[in-house]
């Protein structure tokens, strides 16, 4: 009797697939042991192993003339490739989670969110200089949005060849914000800058403002950058559910069950783009490097922007570090700013200001995603 079928697949494993098992194991380790974005890195890591088993049944295969359909490939084709439904639907949950109150009490901080998106566009330039074509460069630059679903959506719509690497870079660096941002901020600030205090006036925001806000944001973003409507619209729809006050159960469902379910599926689905032949190449390392550059540039430009703004508003100065919170990695970035402020002066409390800039970055990053798409749609 021939038992070779037992080890046939073992001998079919390529070295690239072995590399992917290591990548998968590292992602799982980062998620479980280090607590880095576990909700996404764990499914992505497991998925990386799953799709790279020889003749994996989770991907479409044709063997001896018999075609089988794989569930992960189907999820990818339906949930991401055909409709971008998974990343977009996730925005309902994100919108429902965000309290824009601190930002609404200090609208000046909207500008911090806008400035901190510069890293996206500067990274596109660097990627082009490294030889990537425009669509791939734009997809790589959007890692600087510090917003995983936006990165996945833009790279998918633009048909980038590197969607797997981009997703891994986006989520890894979001998890590494507490390491990356202090380094970037200290590059462009002095201890005196970091110790600058900002009084927090607080104040309540009326229900009318909270309800009108998501509607106004959607209309304005839709008129200036129509391609951003799917992203901004669903983010703001989630926020309207939260703020309207009559959909309490739906708001909680969006924040918990919906967000968790989609995150779970998104993580394992994105693994379909992590097949060894597409992932194990030099460009993946370049993309990881460029993602880091994007996060650093976001933070540096955010700080420098506030420094310039302070020249024009000497009576109402902002701590320059708050500018770096304009990236949308919420709430990690706000915590980093609070910690750095207290390191410089133990009585310096910047958390609420940083949160305001941080949630502004959430809006700005989805607008940035839309603007990049708009450019290619002409």
């Amino acid at each position, binding site marked *: 009797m021939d038992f070779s079928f037992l080890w046939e697949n073992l001998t079919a494993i390529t070295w690239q697939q072995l590399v992917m098992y290591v990548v998968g194991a590292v992602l799982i380790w980062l998620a479980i042991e280090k607590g880095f974005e576990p909700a996404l890195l764990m499914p992505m890591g497991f998925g990386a192993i799953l799709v790279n088993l020889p003749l994996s049944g989770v991907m479409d295969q044709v063997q001896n003339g018999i075609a089988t359909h794989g569930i992960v490939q189907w999820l990818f084709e339906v949930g991401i490739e055909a409709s971008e439904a998974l990343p977009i639907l996730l925005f309902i949950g994100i919108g429902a989670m965000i309290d824009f109150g601190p930002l609404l009490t200090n*609208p000046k901080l909207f*500008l911090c969110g806008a400035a901190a*998106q510069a890293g996206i566009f500067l990274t596109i*330039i660097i990627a082009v200089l490294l030889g990537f074509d425009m669509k791939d460069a*734009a997809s790589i630059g959007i890692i600087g949005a510090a917003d995983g679903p936006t990165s996945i959506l833009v790279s998918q719509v633009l048909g980038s060849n590197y969607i797997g690497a981009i997703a891994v870079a986006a989520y890894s660096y979001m998890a590494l914000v507490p390491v990356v941002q202090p380094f970037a901020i200290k590059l462009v600030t002095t201890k005196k800058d970091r110790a600058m205090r900002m009084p927090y006036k607080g104040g309540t925001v009326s229900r009318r403002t909270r309800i009108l806000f998501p509607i106004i944001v959607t209309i*304005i*973003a839709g008129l200036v950058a129509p391609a951003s409507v799917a992203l901004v619209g669903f983010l703001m729809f989630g926020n309207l559910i939260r703020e309207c006050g009559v959909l309490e159960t739906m708001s909680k469902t969006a924040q918990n069950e919906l967000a968790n379910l989609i995150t779970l599926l998104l993580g394992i689905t994105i693994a379909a783009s992590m097949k060894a032949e597409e992932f194990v190449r030099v460009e993946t390392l370049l993309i990881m490097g460029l993602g880091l550059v994007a996060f650093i540039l976001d933070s540096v430009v955010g700080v420098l922007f506030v420094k310039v703004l302070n020249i024009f508003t000497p009576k109402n100065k902002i701590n320059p570090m708050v500018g770096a919170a304009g990236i949308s990695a919420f709430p990690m970035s706000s915590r980093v700013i609070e910690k750095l402020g207290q390191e410089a002066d133990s009585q310096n409390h910047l958390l609420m200001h940083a949160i305001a800039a941080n949630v502004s970055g959430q809006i700005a990053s989805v607008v*940035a995603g839309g*603007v990049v798409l708009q450019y290619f749609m002409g």
Partner: protein
Amino acid sequence: MNNETLLIAPAPTPDEVAGVIGGADAPTTIMTAEVGVAENLGGAVQILGQGMASIFVVLGIIALFVGVLKKLDNKKKK
């Protein structure tokens, strides 16, 4: 340079550039590769300008609206 031009004239692929090597003419090979990057660079700079301008316009207008709503709230309170 408009977007259409950029989309019609993408950077040469590594294969295309490799093909030009067969011309046994180093300056031509270098120029072919560099023209693609230069064109893309123009596009990247354009996207930087358009992108940042759009983001500042969107967020600036939203900030103005929020400022107006805040003032209306304050008036109501008084």
